[in-house]
Every structure is written in C-alpha cells, then in structure tokens.
C-alpha cells in the first residue's frame, strides 16, 4: 500500500524507530529541520538549558524573531510596558548567549514568525518545522510537517534537535470546484472547521487536496494550513507543486543551481500515492461556498454570511447547545439576527492567518475609492516589516490611510491581545485573525472571524458585509497605483 504525504515526511525524519507496544516503549524520535523561536514561549526553555548546563544543539537550524509582544506604533522608542520590554530584552540576551540568529524590531526581516520563515525561503517542502506557537501549522502549505509545541518541547528541540512523537492519523480534506468571486481561502477553512468541529481534527494530520486547493496561491494555502489547529489538528499540509516552486525560487534561503534541481527532484516525490489510504476523508464543495463568518466564541461556531445567528435549539448535542447559549450571551447576539445586520466597532486586518501581500492587496482593492464607515476604526497590521515595505512600494499604505485606516508596524498585534492593540469590553470586531475565543482580542471583546475582503467590505458599510453588498466604487481605476 502506498503512503500519504504526511507519512512520507514522517518516515524521512525518523532518527530512531520506536520500541513498539510495551508500557515503557518510547515512540519514534524525529529530527527537526527548523526551529522557529519568539519571545513569549522561549525564555523558560533557554533558562532550562542554562540550569541543566546544556547547549543549543543546532543554532544553524534555529531562527528567532520578535512578534507577539511588540508594539505596532513608535517602534523606535523603548517599549513602554516594563514587563514586555523585559521579555523582548530577555530574547535578545538569550539569542546572543546561545548564538541564535534574531530579527529584532526595526529589522527588515522582523515580523510574525510564520510570515518570516516562508518569506526568507527557510520553509521548504518535506521539512519538519516546529515553533512554540500553535499556528506553526501554517508552514504545512509547502508540504512540510509543521507543528506547534509547548515550552518543554521547545527546550527539548533546543537540546536535541529532535522530538519524540506519537504517530498521527491521516485525514484528507477534499475541496473540489471553483471558488466564486469574493470567496477565498479563509472561507474554505472556516467552513471546514464548522463542518468537523474544533476537536474534529484531534490526533490527525490534515492534507488539503482537490482542484480548489491546487488553484490557490501559496499565501492562500498558508491561510488554510494556518487554521488547521482550530480544528484540533496537529498539522495541516498541501502537497508541493509548481505553485510552490515558483513562490520559493530566488528567496534568500532557497537552494540554488544544482542544489535546487536536486531539491525539486525530491520535492516531486512528496505527494500522496494513488493507492494510499487516509484514515478519514472529508469533502467540501468549493462551487457553492459563500463568504463565511463566525457568530460564537470558538472557530467552529460559524455560518455563511448570508445566514442568521443560529439558535441554541438548533444543536442536538447538549454540550453544543450549552456552548451556543453561552456564546450568544458573551457575543451579545440574538438568535435569528441576520449576520449582515450585525454592526461592528473595529476591523482588524492582520495576523499570521491573513497579513501577507495578497491579503493586503485584496482588501485594498475593495476599499480603493470608497469611504470608511465613520463609526468604525480599522487597523491594518502587516505580517512582517518586509510585507510593510513591499506594500508601501505598491502604494497600499496610502490606500489604507486615505480610507481612514491605521497603518501599523508588523507583529501579532490585535490577534491575541498581548500588546496594547486590544478591544475594549463589549467592543465588536470583524477580524481576519484565527481565534474568536472569549477575551482573545482584549477582555470582554467580541470577535467575528472573516476573510480580508469581508473585513474590507465591513469597514465600508459598518455592518458585516460581503464585497457583493457594496455599491460600485466611484472612480476605481483612477486612484489605482500599481507597482513599478
């Protein structure tokens, strides 16, 4: 029987086969090709190394950046919050002590760790990639096996460049058809999570397959793989193809010359064999998919934007019913309210899910020549300093600023409410991020997860909206500034 993509990548990284079934049987020990590090989940791991007198085994397979706890304003000034400043300084000290490459605030390669890796060409097909961050699944878009880990495992990788991992089950997510205009990768993944639930992927590596996935760009594939964790999956993957290679060619750390040819030859083997069998298969129809939006407080609580807020009575399962009741109360919503009647206070365009060039371009295309609803504030936070520079070169910053949005510096920002970019109690936000948990974007804040184009249309109308709800823009072509 053939192998799935996930099994092939796994098998290529086994340092030591597991001991079998005994009570003390160690599982497979896997080599880790790339370890991404940031300021929040690493200080205790570095301290652990120091206390045990251990070295960082492979500084040359490790890279750090500052993202979770960095400000997105006044980045040239000392960080105002003393605890945050200490945490950033601790990362800098640790990287200097252990010889880790670090891209600090102000550096052109600084940014959200999951934007930086692919942008530098460090994320490549067939790799094992880990980071003390659950959205590490993003890198699976390249056909890598990429997993979020906790701080104890961060320390383990630092000391050994390996992880002991229990085998995964495999799930195929087949998305066939063609997305309609205004429907994007974000809608695919939100629909998948609504379908299988926040625990549906638990124990599985998801492989996204089918014509709709093949038609997506790398950045769109990253959006999908990014949110695999919201379905509970340990990782999400897309097999590499010409789209992958075109994206990678010429990036700083991509192989060159004969190395590139050898790499492509290997990468071409990284696809699920025709006779391989997945443990589970799930199908989604891209043709009929509509823009998707969440109404509740977990990413599985979503509906099509054209639908209404569901009633707890719609759920058969007692736990789901209770969760829906609680969510409606927290979100301040009445069952039966059309989603498009919901008014928001804030629009957040950013996060490792949707902060890359294509996301910014898609949103800019919607707002160009239009006026922002005066009661809505909009934050645009590029995923990396490099994305910010590229966007400025294309004039996108001007489009956002003319519209009345705030153009910020790169970082995780309002996705997780750690730096000063937070919602107030009761404030409602249409957000391109990945989690609508209670208080995620700030204590008492209310989050609706949406795609970049829905976020942009919502900023125009002030209510949750799809691009098709907008009046034609007055002079769309005249204001466009194309890249030179």
């Amino acid at each position: 029987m053939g192998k799935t993509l996930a099994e092939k990548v796994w098998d290529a990284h086994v340092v030591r086969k597991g001991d079998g079934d005994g009570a003390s049987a160690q599982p497979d020990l896997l080599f880790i090709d790339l370890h991404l590090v940031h300021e929040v989940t690493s200080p205790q791991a570095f301290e652990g190394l120091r206390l045990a007198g251990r070295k960082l085994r492979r500084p040359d397979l490790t890279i750090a950046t500052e993202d979770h706890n960095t400000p997105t304003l006044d980045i040239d000034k000392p960080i105002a919050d003393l605890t945050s400043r200490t945490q950033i300084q601790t990362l800098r000290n640790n990287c200097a002590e252990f010889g880790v490459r670090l891209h600090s605030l102000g550096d052109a390669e600084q940014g959200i760790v999951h934007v930086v890796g692919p942008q530098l060409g460090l994320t490549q097909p067939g790799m094992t990639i880990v980071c003390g961050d659950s959205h590490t699944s993003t890198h699976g878009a390249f056909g890598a096996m990429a997993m979020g880990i906790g701080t104890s495992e961060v320390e383990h990788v630092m000391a050994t460049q390996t992880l002991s991992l229990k085998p995964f089950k495999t799930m195929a997510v087949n998305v066939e058809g063609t997305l309609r205009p205004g429907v994007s990768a974000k809608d695919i993944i939100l629909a998948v999570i609504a379908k299988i639930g926040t625990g549906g992927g638990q124990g599985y590596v998801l492989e996204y397959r089918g014509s709709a996935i093949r038609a997506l760009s790398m950045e769109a594939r990253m959006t999908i793989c990014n949110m695999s964790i919201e379905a509970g999956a340990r990782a999400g993957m897309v097999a590499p193809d010409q789209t992958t290679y075109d994206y990678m060619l010429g990036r700083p750390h991509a192989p060159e010359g004969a190395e590139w040819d050898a790499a492509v030859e290997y990468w071409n083997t990284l696809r699920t064999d025709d006779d391989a069998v997945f443990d589970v298969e799930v199908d989604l129809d891209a043709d009929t998919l509509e823009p998707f939006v969440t109404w509740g407080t977990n990413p599985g609580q979503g509906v099509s934007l054209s639908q209404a807020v569901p009633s707890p009575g719609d759920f058969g399962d007692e736990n789901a019913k209770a969760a829906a009741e609680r969510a409606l109360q927290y979100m301040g919503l009445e069952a039966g309210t059309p989603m498009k009647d919901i008014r928001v206070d804030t629009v957040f365009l950013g996060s490792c899910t949707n902060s890359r060039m294509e996301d910014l371009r898609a949103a800019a295309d919607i707002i160009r020549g239009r006026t922002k609803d005066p009661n809505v504030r909009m934050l645009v936070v590029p995923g990396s300093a490099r994305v910010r520079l590229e966007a400025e070169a294309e004039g996108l910053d001007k489009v956002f600023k003319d519209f009345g949005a705030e153009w910020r510096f790169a970082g995780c920002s309002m996705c997780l409410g750690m730096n000063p970019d937070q919602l107030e109690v009761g404030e409602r936000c249409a957000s391109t991020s990945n989690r609508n948990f209670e208080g995620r974007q700030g204590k008492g804040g209310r989050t609706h997860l949406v795609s970049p184009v829905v976020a942009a249309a919502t900023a125009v109308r002030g209510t949750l909206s799809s691009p098709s709800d907008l009046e034609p823009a007055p002079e769309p072509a005249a204001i466009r500034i194309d890249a030179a």
Partner: protein
Amino acid sequence: MEKFTKHTGIGVPLRQSNVDTDQIIPAVYLKRITRTGFEDALFSAWRKDSSFILNQEPYSAGSVLVAGPDFGTGSSREHAVWALKDYGFKAVLSSRFADIFRGNSGKQGLLAAQVAQDDIELIWKELENAPGTEVTVDLESKTVVCGNIVAPFEIDDYTRWRLLEGLDDIGLTLQHEADITAYEATRPSFKPKTLPAKVS
C-alpha cells in the same frame, strides 16, 4: 519531574466544553519570563465573576478539575499548564483534550486523564450534589473514583510510564545522541540552514 502515582483531592465540576487556553490564562499574563507564579492568572476573566466555580467553597480548594470536552484547545502556551499546577491542580479530567495541551501536561506532571463523557456527567452530578467530594485518580490502575463512581481513564502508555517514574524527557532522548549524530550526517545538503544569514 515529580513522580505521579495516585492523587486524591476535591473535585471541581467545570460544566463547559471548549475551555480554550486563552480562558485558562489570557495572553496578558504571558509577558512573564518565569515558569511559576501564575496561580492568580488561572481563569482570570472568569474568576472576576463571583458565581464562578472556583470562587465557591469548598471547590476553591479543589485539585482535580472535571471539565467538558475539548479542554485546552487553541494556543500552545504551556503557561496554561503552569497556571493550573500553580493553583494546586494535580489532574484534569475531560472526554477530549487538545493535543498540544495534553502533551504539555505530560511534560509537567499534570495528569490529563481522558474519561468517557457519560462518566464525566455522573461525576459532575456527584460533585454538584455533594460539594467537597474527593476524587481519586490512580495512574497505576488508570481509574478515577468519585463517591460510588468508578471509571476507567485513558492515557498513552509512554506518558503514563514517564509520569510514574518522574522522568525527564531530554535526558531520555540524549541517551540516543549517537543516533541523532548519525542521522545528521545523512541529511541532504539542499536543506536550508539559518546561518550564515541571508536576506533579500
């Protein structure tokens, strides 16, 4: 890591599904660089509500948390485990745990015991009818006892063995250092390195 064989303590019924790690500990508490001192951060938003279970005697002295399905979803923050431990919890029971949370628990000696939802419901009723009832979690026999309820729980064999023995993961792996070195010698040269740094 401290050995875990058996623990008995007051059970806390948390009748809620999808208790994500942002609820267990919000991001604002993640700025600290220590591994301890997170007890006040645990469920910090919910603890401001006087009706929250941990604000009620005798549950506030609980050490076995009995939660709904999909406990520990979301962020990989190990701070969630540290906060539960710092508060005094030794075990969490749920019918389904998020993978990363379960992994983090196993590394830190917090027992994440997977119990069938029907049994969780029975335990919830018992703990609500008789507040202060103790729950015994026995890792040797993989059973939970609460009043007259005796329920089996699941945990993977390797984590169970490490908890029973109190073993440090890194030390175990370093016993295989020769295998790691041998593997490193076979890696293809086209695989990327972060050093020397290249930028665009």
